[in-house]
């Protein structure tokens, strides 16, 4: 069983807004094969475990419900692995 997450912890929840059958008529087939999913981060309102149905209060203090997925979510985007093809562009005034 996963650890208990305390109320007040910054977490991310997930919710299926539309199942594949409920999606908009104009979506292409590859997209229609998948559900329409929402993720929102907020402060957990009561103790829970990952996978539980929970409510969070977002940064604007709005309650939103969904399944608890991530504890203390953080951003990992970066400048990416070096793309060597870029490095030589413009060196020494080269055009």
């Amino acid at each position, binding site marked *: 069983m996963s650890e208990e997450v305390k109320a007040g912890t910054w977490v991310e929840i997930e919710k299926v807004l539309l199942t594949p059958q*409920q999606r908009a008529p104009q*979506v292409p087939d*590859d997209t229609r094969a*998948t559900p329409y999913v929402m*993720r929102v981060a907020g402060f957990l309102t009561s103790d829970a475990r990952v996978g539980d149905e929970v409510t969070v209060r977002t940064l604007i203090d709005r309650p939103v419900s969904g399944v608890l997925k991530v504890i203390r979510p953080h951003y990992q*985007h970066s400048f990416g692995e070096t*793309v060597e093809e*870029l490095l030589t*562009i413009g060196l020494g005034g080269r055009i």
Partner: protein
Amino acid sequence: MTRDNSYQAVMARKNEIMKSSMGIDYDVYRQGELAFDYERMMSDCGFSLDDIIKIQAETKVGNTPIFELRNLTEAVRKISAPGKGARIFLKDEAANASGSFKARRASISAYVAAKKGYKGVIAATSGNYGAAVASQAAQRGLKCIIVQEVFDSHGIGQPEIVEKGRKCEAFGAEVIKLSVGPELFYYLLLTLEETGFFNASLYTPFGIKGVESLGNEIAHQVKAIAGRFPDAIVVTHAGGGNLTGTARGLIGAGCDAKIVACSVDLNGLHMASDRDFNRKSFTTGHTGFGVPFATWPDRVDVPRNAARSMRYMDEYVLVNQGEVFYITELLAKMEGIERGPAGNTSVTGAVALAREMYRDQIIVVQETEYTGAGKHHNSQLAFARSMGIEVRRGDPTQGVNGKSIVIPETLAQVQGRKQDMEKLRLSYLKNAVKQCPIEKWSNVDFNFVAADIKKDVNWLHKNLESKSLQA
């Protein structure tokens, strides 16, 4: 009683939700089947240029610097015919509060929302606009929700979009992160209904009026430096608001510079496709928005779009992903400034156009955007590579969208491709006829459509008779 929140039911409530979330009654501007009084709608929002400038100054928007890109201009002259190679200027819009020109667009909406007593603002956007709305809302004491398309069905987020989401949160906004699909609009409506917040749509008169100050500044700044108005303005083009607002501002200042739209060519990739979502390296400023919005503006989240780019567009140039990445890198190495790649779309277009213009002419790149982790050409290319896209140097026209990105080997390979404006206008006409059969058009409709594509009624009649338009 619980409301029916199915896709169909919410979409059917669209008009009433929109009305209460903006306080604009679009019905009063209706003139015919297609026609509406565009100029009255724009002036009814009640802000003069001086008002706009004053409001924007309160929240760190506008009065951004303009620079002459001397080294880039010299480089372009080296690869141009004798006597050719216009002076390239760049309006550094990254200096606005949220790091892009979108702060101008958000500023008036946030001001109006606060003044009308709304508790918060909502915007549906994956772009710089979210950060702009969040930044303006923070300064006006408003709550803010940004509804954003972020990840594919594998949960993978485009690095540029992830960064923009982070920026929204940094300004205290709630960010609703959604998977790929046009149902973004559905969820926007649901959230507007639930919260009673103001809809800070990109396409209201407020959004476009806010950009008029940009065109005005460009005209006056260039005149102060060069002693005269610029000859051409290159605008990174997507939804059309940037172009429309800038052009209106230039015209207001008495400047009749040629207005050139520029988009990244993403032909072959479907904008609502879960698979294609992470196989494009540009999330805005591309043809997936640029062409459909130019050829039929009224496909947005408000009944009548205030961004009507074909009214003002003189030329439309496409560049490809590799060309923009090359120019983004060159801008850093040669001019000593790092700016976001999406904004540099228009720098790329300007390089291509400057080669054909005379040395004493002036071409202005009308915006830049901030750069950083995720929102950087190296991040985009590294991510593309991880998605199986080939990245190499060579002839950029050999790149195949979704499969390869070819970065030019030389500046001379940055050429762009001019679009056939007549074809775009015909495409608009086709959409208009699809919307309402010609038999039902009255004089006011003919006049409106002609003005909407910068042509006269004679041109319209001539082309409406052509077979290609018959349904």
